[in-house]
């Protein structure tokens, strides 16, 4: 089974303002996007477990126009607060990279 990084052209994380963290998974082609989307590999439960959240606060949006899946979660800490590790939120996508996809 390929890893997510092998079928995408971009996996990134970024602040969506100081209180939310958003992830973009942009696929290389439409067919693979649809396959991964329809297999629900990226789902609320996986995200909740990985980022230690309640599934209900994980928002997953399939964005067909760009063959992309977007995930938005509450930021683990407010951007730049004294216990924050990543002010831009730019390096929080690591666990997604090696995710196995069909």
């Amino acid at each position, binding site marked *: 089974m390929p890893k997510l990084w092998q079928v995408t052209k971009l996996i990134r994380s970024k602040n969506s303002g100081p209180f939310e963290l958003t992830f973009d998974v942009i696929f290389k082609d439409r067919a693979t996007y649809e396959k991964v989307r329809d297999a629900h590999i990226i789902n609320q439960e996986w995200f909740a477990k990985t980022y230690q959240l309640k599934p209900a606060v994980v928002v997953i949006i399939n*964005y067909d126009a760009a063959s992309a899946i977007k995930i938005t979660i509450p930021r683990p800490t407010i*951007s730049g607060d*004294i216990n924050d590790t990543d002010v831009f939120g730019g390096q929080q996508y690591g666990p997604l990279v090696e995710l196995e996809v069909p």
Partner: protein
Amino acid sequence: MNEIRVLSATGMLGSGFREETMRRGMALEPHFIGVDSGSTDPGPYYLATGDTHFSDSAYKRDWRLILLAARAAKIPAIVGSACTAGTDSQVERLVRITREIAREEKLGFKLAVIRSEQNKDYLKQKLRAGKITPLANAPKLDAAVIDRSAHIVGMCGIEPFVEALQHGADVVIAGRSSDTSVFSAMPVMKGFNPATVWHAAKILECGAACVVLRKYPDCMFARITNDEFIIEPPNPDYRCDPVSVASHNLYENSTPYELVEPSGVLNTFSARYEALSDRAVRVSGSTFKPADRYTIKLEGAELAGYQSLIIGSVRDPIILRQLDSWLDGLNQAVHDRIVAVFGADVVGKYQYEVRIFGKNATMGRLESETAIGHEVGLLFQVTAQSQELATALMKSVGHMAVHYPVPEWTGLITSIAYPYSPAEITRGPSYRFNMNHVVEPATPLEMFGIEYHTV
């Protein structure tokens, strides 16, 4: 007027663009040049202090080229979120730079200055009246939070820009503004379909970010008509395709389908993206729903404490193989030493934390990878309510840490490599964002003062 043309100088004033690209963009006869100058991305420091993300030299380089191009073509130049957070002092800074450029280049124009910093009494009164409501994951807001804030700005919509342009401003410098309002104000003022305009503005606001492969920051150009807009990079080395343009809706947004503005919500769910050539894209089909209530987003920052840091590294395999238990022991010893030196009263007056680079410094408690390499970096962090206390505590931490033993070695060891003398680094004040709320003003202009100057 059935088409309005917009040149976006770059994603953020001070980040740069190519002079040649601006020349090419100007040859396409834009009706105005817009540029965003702000972001909350680099954290609360800029809002709290009024310091800027870029240097004066970087702002001046970009702004000079924009002003020269705009004045030569007699079109407005509009900048929003001046110098990072849009505080009054940051607005003043860009006004000063503008005056310097005008003097040096012998330019004359009517300047409008829009201020977005908020009056605390006004906000407390709005809070009492129930006119301030929280957005997602907002911290608790009360009068004390408002009082403690170093600065609070409101993020303006298009209305103050429209007001300034209708007063004949040639150059508009605004405090905190929504990135898109900089680009939407003039087209909406001229009567273009808000749905088309706001979508175009969202694509324009990051400059060349919507191209297939952005190698460096640069300009972007759009032609907007009532029902569609065409986006095409003026730099011949760049190209847009339908996916690159659609993808830009994802960027630093919680959803690609909705963009919330003070005056309404852009919905891109039914948008169509078509290739017009191998480098231009036609976009149509979005909708715009006017808001039931007009709201302005607030941003505030307050002091979180003063910090002292130590950076060090560990290479000894004996220590590394028991790193967690060694650090647990060290942290306990640090606590005991601090109580011994400063008294039991000090507990609760400081926060102490060690971050392990090479283990989990990026993701902290969320890290699932357990392996470490042949060395790790350690970042010791003490936060206290005064710099004196933070530094004093860190001096004890530093000495305790550098000689903390492991059972395998007998005799005094030096267990951490410190690259600096003194080991402790004064970081100074640290801040936090303290609100994520919207306020309902009586009118769209109520929270934003506008002044006009002849430069």
